[in-house]
């Protein structure tokens, strides 16, 4: 699937601000399942942009604006080719849940088994997760059960939470958006000793119809299946992350990978508008045939 992603973030300040230092994690990943063919980042006011990979090898663009400005626009255009993951099927059996113990000693898994800014992992959450998983002993099946449970039991309601809502609040209200569902799933998986990480990205959901202008960035989860690697599960939609998912960055939770984050000096009276548009650049070959 060849997709074009447009993502514009506009910050407007009530009075001029200065010393603005920012990081953008907007460039889609290039890997086995996805190729980012083109990426263009535009900052207004114009400034020099530096680029580096962060600790989790996400592509980070860093820029700073020291002089006074009343508006900041960060605009990213990406062309991405994606494909469905053939690595594992929904019904596949993997490793038993009970044998995941030593994973905590694996460097790349350690971070994704701990509590983090918005995610809690511990005995209390483990009890909840155990009820969801029930008698299932296979870790890939257990992860899918958690994803399906969240999809079925939690209510998707825009504006019911904000970007800094902790998963504990989401568990209380059983309501949230994809960011919150991903956090809940991370908590459940980690409590069962199953490494899980947060994925920031976009979702293509058909031609822009009634949802025009209502799109935003998307979030889901990747779980580590021993011996096979990381596989994406989307608890918001209750299915395996596929070719319509564009992966941008991974982290322990949202706080590691906000699309744009930064600091500045100046007024607190500001507003932010975000526009995201994912369009199909080319029909997949299979669909055309």
């Amino acid at each position, binding site marked *: 699937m060849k997709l074009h992603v447009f993502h514009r973030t506009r910050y407007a300040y009530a009075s001029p601000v200065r010393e603005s230092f920012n990081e953008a994690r907007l460039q889609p990943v290039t890997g086995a399942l996805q190729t980012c063919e083109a990426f263009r980042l535009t900052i207004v006011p114009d400034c020099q942009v530096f680029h580096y990979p962060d600790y989790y090898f996400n592509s980070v663009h860093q820029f700073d604006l020291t002089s006074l400005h009343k508006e900041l626009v960060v605009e990213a255009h990406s062309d991405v080719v994606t494909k469905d993951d053939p690595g594992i099927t929904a019904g596949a059996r993997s490793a038993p849940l009970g044998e995941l113990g030593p994973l905590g000693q694996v460097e790349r898994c350690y971070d994704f088994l701990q509590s983090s800014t918005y995610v809690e992992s511990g005995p209390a959450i483990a009890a909840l997760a155990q009820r969801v998983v029930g008698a299932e002993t296979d870790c890939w099946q257990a992860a899918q059960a958690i994803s399906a449970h969240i999809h079925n039991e939690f209510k998707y309601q825009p504006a019911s939470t904000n970007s800094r809502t902790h998963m504990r609040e989401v568990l209380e209200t059983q309501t949230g958006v994809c960011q919150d569902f991903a956090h809940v799933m991370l908590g459940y998986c980690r409590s069962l000793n199953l490494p899980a990480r947060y994925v920031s990205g976009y979702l293509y959901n058909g031609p822009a119809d009634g949802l025009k202008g209502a799109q935003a960035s*998307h979030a889901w989860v990747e779980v580590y299946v021993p011996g096979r690697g990381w596989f994406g599960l989307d608890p918001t939609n209750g299915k395996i992350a596929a070719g319509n998912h564009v992966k941008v960055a991974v982290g322990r939770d949202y706080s590691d990978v906000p699309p744009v984050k930064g600091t500045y000096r100046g007024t607190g009276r500001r507003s932010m508008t975000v526009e995201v548009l994912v369009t199909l650049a080319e029909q997949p070959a299979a669909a055309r045939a």
Partner: protein
Amino acid sequence: MLSRVANSLYWMSRYIGRAENTARLVDVNLQLLLDMRKLDDKALAGHWIPILQSTGDEDLFRQLHEKATGKTVTEYLVFQPENTNSILSSLAQARENARMIRDQITSELWEEINRLYLFLHSPQARTLWRNSPHEFFQEIKNAAMLLQGLTDGTVMRNEGWQFVQCGRYLERADKTSRILDVRHASVPEKGLPAEVSQADALGWSAVLRSCSAWDAYKAQHGAEVLPAHVASLLLLNDLFPRSVRFCVREIDSALHRISGVADDRFSNDAEKLAGRLLAELSFSTVEEIFEYGLHAYVDTLQGKLNAIGEALFQAYIFQPFQTLEDDQLRQQEEQQQQHRLPAPTLRHGSAPA
């Protein structure tokens, strides 16, 4: 450089200039009394009141003293601590400013300021003043000139130096205009005086000597003292180092050296106002000034000089207090990842949201 340091250099320089000019003014006018025919209270008051007016402190004087006599006026202008512009107060403030920036000036300069300050507070100063006022004022003038010479001869020509120059020449331009204004009552409100009496001529020559301009005047215009020529020398002369035009040119170039902006451009209000005033003084004639009225002209001029000082303060020294609101370090607002649910057909499972 720190604004605080610039401010202290500027005011140190201004107060030294103020003390010097007040000494000049009082000295010359004390001498002038020797030439007066009759010395009753009225004549004395008529002599001293314009001088008090020129320093701008007449109201305070009337609160402190009943009569304007040589004794009370000189006491007021030289030693009175209540008068913030008296020589004593000026030097105290020059010293206080110098003390705050001792690491920025030279020890020679500091020691001389301190010596002069201690001298003024000593009983010897009082004795000298009583016995020989002229020598007393000579002492102060010489010390002030020595201070300026020490500044010229020992201080680094860095940014701070430019602030010293600004302070020195703003004060000098202001005081020259005030000294010129002392005699404004002897000329008509508008236009040139028809004839100049002998007493007036003496008065105008006192103005020249107050500004150390007597020799420059003789070289330029000969021995006959005419108000138009005096005003021309003190306001518009290009070469006389105490004329207002000369001082404004020095201010203008010091301001441009601070900002690094080319001479015919400006980057702040101080440069704009100084450049404008310089152009005005460069392209004016003394006839136009008298046509406008000497006193009115000097009044406007002082307003413009004050505006330059104020603009300099705003541009370099005054740092507005940042409200907490405007200076606070803040997090950029974060966008929630909340892709709206895809159309039902694309959803896996059946439960609607």
